[in-house]
């Protein structure tokens, strides 16, 4: 049987909040291990919560389980079966996209969806139904998953798109059970390089218009926005589009070895950075320099890590925010709500919210995951230091505005949303709850995020809250 280790503190990438739980580690070898873990899950003491943890790259409390048990990704690294004929990979859930890329890029295969970091597990990618720069073309991660295996409180299951539990798991933030394995489809590539088209947009309207006009011509698209810019420069951005480069597009020095892949980490952030290091002034200076440095327009060939995972080259970069940590705020608003988007960008700018380059992206059609985040529209993500004055009130107001516009906040990034707004943001919550109720009637699988947002039980809306937030955006309560 798996053993419980001593209690430790766990949190997300933003390092706030933190809670203590006991890791579960298995001491058996492959064959019997998953059955033993399933047996362990079925026999957890009454009232104890349990959750699978991957690499802890969600930002808030999605991979925390206060006072409960956390499974460790190291116990889910046994299967890695690449099928070049079917162009599929069947792998244990603990493998990171980094490990998958190291093994498969040299063979000419890539994952269909990669987020801004390679350090997420296969299990985590499914649980958060992650998206990448090609969402407008290829959708989210679950679109490319054929089947997955799950340890639920009742049993071990293999599920496919025909099962409601499959869709409750995609974006279900780990609350359907432990994902143990998945079979995913792969993408054939000729080279390990991306042909990148870069263009500067001097304000938000230009950014929006350029992306609307040109996104459809490219597989990958993203804009890095300077959220501190104001006035005529409000929302100025550097937009990059990408395509997998073909062999004949490579420069001579890469042409001999077009699938060479070198994702090594260059720098390590110090553990002792003071919380004030990243402040309004230092962040503004960085954003300014970065915008000035970008070419007005150019085409270049970049490596996969450079284009997709620029921050991965500095390990533990989250430590730069110091002891108090930071949060990431990522929301989506539907197409047609560009005014809401601009008004929110304006709010961040007006409040001089210190944030490094924010990421703006257009989503295509969403998946069938009940709680999957992406749906057609605009998404914006900002990293903000926790010590920013008035942050709670600012984001509360924006949450409300997002909900009113028919948009939503991303659970994988969240660490502070209020439960009252969740049913409005995720209208299929009740459908998810009914699947969950059948699958896990005792409520064993619940994260700190799930508790904080009352994902399993409904919360009555506090009238005063709706009034305060509604008044702030100049609209009456309408929830």
């Amino acid at each position, binding site marked *: 049987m798996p053993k419980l280790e001593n*209690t*430790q*503190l766990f949190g997300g990438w*933003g390092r*706030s*909040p*933190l*809670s*203590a*739980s006991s890791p579960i580690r298995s001491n058996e070898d492959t064959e019997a291990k998953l059955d033993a873990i399933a047996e362990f899950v079925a026999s957890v003491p009454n009232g104890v919560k349990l959750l699978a943890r991957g690499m802890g790259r969600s930002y*808030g*409390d999605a991979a925390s*389980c*206060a*006072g*409960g048990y956390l499974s460790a990704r190291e116990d889910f690294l046994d299967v890695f079966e690449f099928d070049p004929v079917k162009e599929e990979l069947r792998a244990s859930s603990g493998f990171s996209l980094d490990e998958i890329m190291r093994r498969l890029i040299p063979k000419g295969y890539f994952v269909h969806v990669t987020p801004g970091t390679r350090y997420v597990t296969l299990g985590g990618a499914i649980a958060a139904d992650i998206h990448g720069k090609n969402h407008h073309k290829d959708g989210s991660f679950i679109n490319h998953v054929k089947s997955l295996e799950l340890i639920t409180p009742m049993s071990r299951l293999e599920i496919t798109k025909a099962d409601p539990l499959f869709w409750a798991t995609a974006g279900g933030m780990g609350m359907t059970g432990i994902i143990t394995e998945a079979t995913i489809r792969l993408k054939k590539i000729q080279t390990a390089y991306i042909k990148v088209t870069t263009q500067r947009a001097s304000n938000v309207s230009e950014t929006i218009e350029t992306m609307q006009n040109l996104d459809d011509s490219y597989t990958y698209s993203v804009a890095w926005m300077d959220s501190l810019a104001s006035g005529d420069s409000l929302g100025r951005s550097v937009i990059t589009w990408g395509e997998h480069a073909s062999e004949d597009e490579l420069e001579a020095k890469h042409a001999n070895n077009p699938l060479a892949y070198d994702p090594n980490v260059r720098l390590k952030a110090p553990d002792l950075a003071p*919380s004030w290091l990243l402040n309004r002034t230092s962040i503004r200076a960085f954003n300014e320099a970065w915008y000035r440095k970008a070419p007005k327009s150019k085409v270049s060939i970049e490596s996969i890590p450079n284009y997709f995972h620029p921050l991965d080259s500095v390990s533990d970069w989250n430590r730069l925010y110091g*002891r*108090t*940590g930071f*949060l990431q705020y990522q929301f989506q608003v539907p197409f047609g709500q560009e005014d809401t988007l601009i008004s929110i960008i304006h709010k961040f700018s007006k409040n001089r919210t210190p944030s490094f380059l924010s990421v703006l992206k257009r989503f295509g059609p969403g998946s069938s995951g009940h709680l999957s985040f992406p749906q057609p529209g605009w998404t914006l993500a900002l990293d903000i230091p*926790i*010590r920013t*004055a008035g*942050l*709670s009130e600012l984001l*509360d107001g924006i949450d409300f505005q997002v909900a009113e516009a028919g948009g939503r906040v991303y659970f994988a990034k969240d*660490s*502070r949303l*209020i439960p009252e707004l969740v049913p409005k943001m995720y209208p299929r919550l009740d459908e998810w709850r009914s699947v969950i109720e059948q699958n896990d009637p005792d409520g064993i699988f619940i994260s*700190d995020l799930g*508790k*904080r947002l009352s994902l399993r039980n409904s*919360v*009555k809306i*506090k*009238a*005063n*809250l709706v009034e*305060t937030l509604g008044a702030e955006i100049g609209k009456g309560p309408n929830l």
Partner: protein
Amino acid sequence: MIDALGQPQCVLIIGGGSDIASALVDRWVDMRCQRVILAGRSFSVMEQVQSQLQSHSAAKVEIVYLDMADHESLAPLTSEVFEKYPDIDMAVLAAGQLGDQAQDERDPKRVEEMFDVNATGPAIFLTACASEFRKKGTGTIVVLSSVAGERVRRSNYVYGASKAATDSFSLALSEALKGTGVNVLVVRPGFVSTKMTQHLTKAPLATTKERVANDIIEALAKKKSLIWSPKEMRWVMLVYKHIPRAIARRIPF
């Protein structure tokens, strides 16, 4: 669950009638707080706080009996409260009495009572509460201490010494709880104009309960374990602590 910015969803207030605690809860119920449990010995005062809170918030407000001077029942009652309200993620220890130095210093019975309520009771409660939060792997305890406990003065040494005990106890508890998911914030307000101090003349750097509440909310977001309110009080006390006794005794407050 406490969020990334240190805001609670379910709060237990010990000394449910305290002005500073009420100012704090007033803010919290307008944010994320869904339930408040007021614990104390005076139902009439707690009922006033309850109706005040319910006048502007739909948060549930419960009242439970808890007496800091009844040491036998403190730990079992604390466990009962945590069992009944398993969502408690924040506890505020605001119980205490100021006493009357002139009478207290001549009456051993009154000194005993001051220490019962301000020192022994809080130490028992903090121990019970810390152990409940440890089991949950998360939780924050806010301890309302006082600058009076930082350097105990002739003019109110019974109160000051009892507060000094709780202050030291809480600071060390905060260290002991590192790595458990439980955080302790010790708050040292200066002179706060409240019903507890209305009969006294205002001291320098006097503050209001609303400002103390605001300082606490900011400190929780920044995960601090010790603050002064107002902030400048920290430097005043640093100097004051080091003034020789012969001079300190001539300072008139």
